Every structure is written in structure tokens, then in C-alpha cells.
């Protein structure tokens, strides 16, 4: 086996980022609903958060010096992979509870898997990150699993 994945790399599976707690505001919901072209009044007025509102709510906020020259923040949850060219990935999201202005939500991201597959033009590395979002009662609100492919 000429695998790309070292023991050291695989040992990062299970790594967890520090939880982040954010508050949902009517103004942020409205901005997101307008920007996405949403047509439903309850979202445009900010009475309830639309699906995927967790994307802006938990997007990483870093200082300017921490951005790469192309304007991207580096994901410190991820190890350095031997392949770096990102291909299309996939997203799976489960919605367990509705989200309203005033809700405090806490997200925790975990690197849940790293594996290798042989593609037509060589090896591919897949990795999965799960983000669990809970409310202040500890109830699961949203679970998002991102799968990314590197070549």
C-alpha cells in the first residue's frame, strides 16, 4: 500500500474545535434573507431564521492579518494534507428545531473522518467535518456534515 495518509495524519480524526456561542438577531436574519433573494415575509422581516442561516452565524471571524492574500481564513481544525487542490464537496444538513431572533446557539466542529480513494487520475483524499449546533437547553438544533475532496 502506497497510502497518502500517515498515522500522524489519521490521528487527527476526532479533533474538535473550541465551541462558539453566538446570538441570533433580527437584523442579521434580515440581511441574510435579502442577500439570498428570499421571498418569504417571515424571513425578510426577521421573525424567524431561514434554513442555512447558521452559515453566516458561524462563519469564522478573524483579524485581517490572519487572512491569506486571497482573503480566506485558514481552518485551524484541519491538518496539513498531502494533497491541496480542493474539488467539489458535499453538504448534509439536518434541521431539528426552528431558530428565532434572541436565540443563543453554540456550534462545535469535529473532524470526523479522513480517507483515501483511487480516482481515475490518481488518489483522492476525502475528509468530513461535522458541526453540531445546540441551544442553551443543550438540544440539538442543526447538524451539518461537510465532505470535501482533495486531489
Amino acid at each position: 500500500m502506497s497510502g497518502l495518509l500517515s498515522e500522524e495524519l489519521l490521528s487527527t480524526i476526532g479533533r474538535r474545535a473550541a465551541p462558539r456561542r453566538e446570538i441570533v438577531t433580527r437584523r442579521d436574519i434580515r440581511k441574510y434573507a435579502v442577500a439570498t433573494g428570499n421571498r418569504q415575509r417571515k424571513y425578510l422581516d426577521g421573525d424567524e431564521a431561514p434554513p442555512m442561516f447558521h452559515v453566516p452565524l458561524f462563519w469564522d471571524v478573524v483579524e485581517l492579518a490572519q487572512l491569506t492574500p486571497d482573503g480566506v481564513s485558514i481552518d485551524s481544525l484541519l491538518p496539513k494534507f498531502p494533497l491541496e487542490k480542493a474539488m467539489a464537496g458535499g453538504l448534509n444538513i439536518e434541521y431539528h428545531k426552528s431558530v428565532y431572533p434572541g436565540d443563543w446557539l453554540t456550534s462545535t466542529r469535529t473532524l470526523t473522518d479522513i480517507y483515501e480513494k483511487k480516482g481515475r487520475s490518481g488518489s483522492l483524499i476525502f475528509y468530513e467535518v461535522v458541526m453540531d449546533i445546540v441551544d442553551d437547553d443543550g438540544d440539538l438544533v442543526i447538524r451539518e456534515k461537510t465532505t470535501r475532496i482533495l486531489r
Partner: protein
Amino acid sequence: MTVNAERFAGLRVGEQLSGREYTPDNVQLMLYNAALWNGHRIHFDEPYAKNVEGYPGLVIAGPMLGDWLHQCVEEWLGEDGHIFSIDYSNRVATYIGDVLTAGGEIAALRPETREVEIDVYIKNQSGDVVTPGKIVVRLADAG
């Protein structure tokens, strides 16, 4: 029967969702990335996107297409239920100037849980599916 049980009973596999056309421009793309706090240059710096990254234009942010898949289903669903889950992937890049169409079709019905499985997509003006997905909705029990 409750209203939602009646609606569920009237659904058929193969039924098309009406869908919607999107023509995102620079302003919408800027506002979207500002709402996220996403500073990636490929979404707003056209010389960078073209000359450094080799794209034909400014790249539409992938999660916005994911959002449109949700909108397509929620507009069809109204207040009769909610989206329980989605699986989707951004397969083909899209650019400012593209004409993008969101749509869907009922793929399966699960009466025991009153769930509807819907194949959803975003297509570009060439008819290519750029963002395929699957959404599961649950029709709520009224009252």
C-alpha cells in the same frame, strides 16, 4: 383528515416544483458575502478571479446555491411542514452573468412518517445541473 394529511394524500411521485430563475449580480453577491463575512477575492475582485485564479468571471458563492434549493422547496411547501434534511453538492462553478434556475421533482413519498423526498437542482443557462441535491420535508400534523 387534517389539512396536511389531505395535502400529502394528493402528492404524486414525479410532481414538479415550479422553480425559480436567478440572475445574481455584483450587488447581490457582495451583500451575500458581506452577510457571511467572507472575504474570498474570487467573489468580488474580478482581475484577481480572472488573472490569478483563471476563472472566466466572479464566482457565485456555493452556499448561496444551496440556499436556493431550500427556497424552491419552502415556497412549494408553504406553512404545511418543514425541511428536515438536505444533501447537496456544488459540482460546477457558476459566475456573475449566468442565468440559474432552481427546481425540483418529488422522488419518493413515505406515508408512515409523512415525509416527501424531493430531488432538487440548480441548472445553468446551458442546462447543466451545477448543484444537485435531495431534500426531505416532513408535513406537520395541523394543530
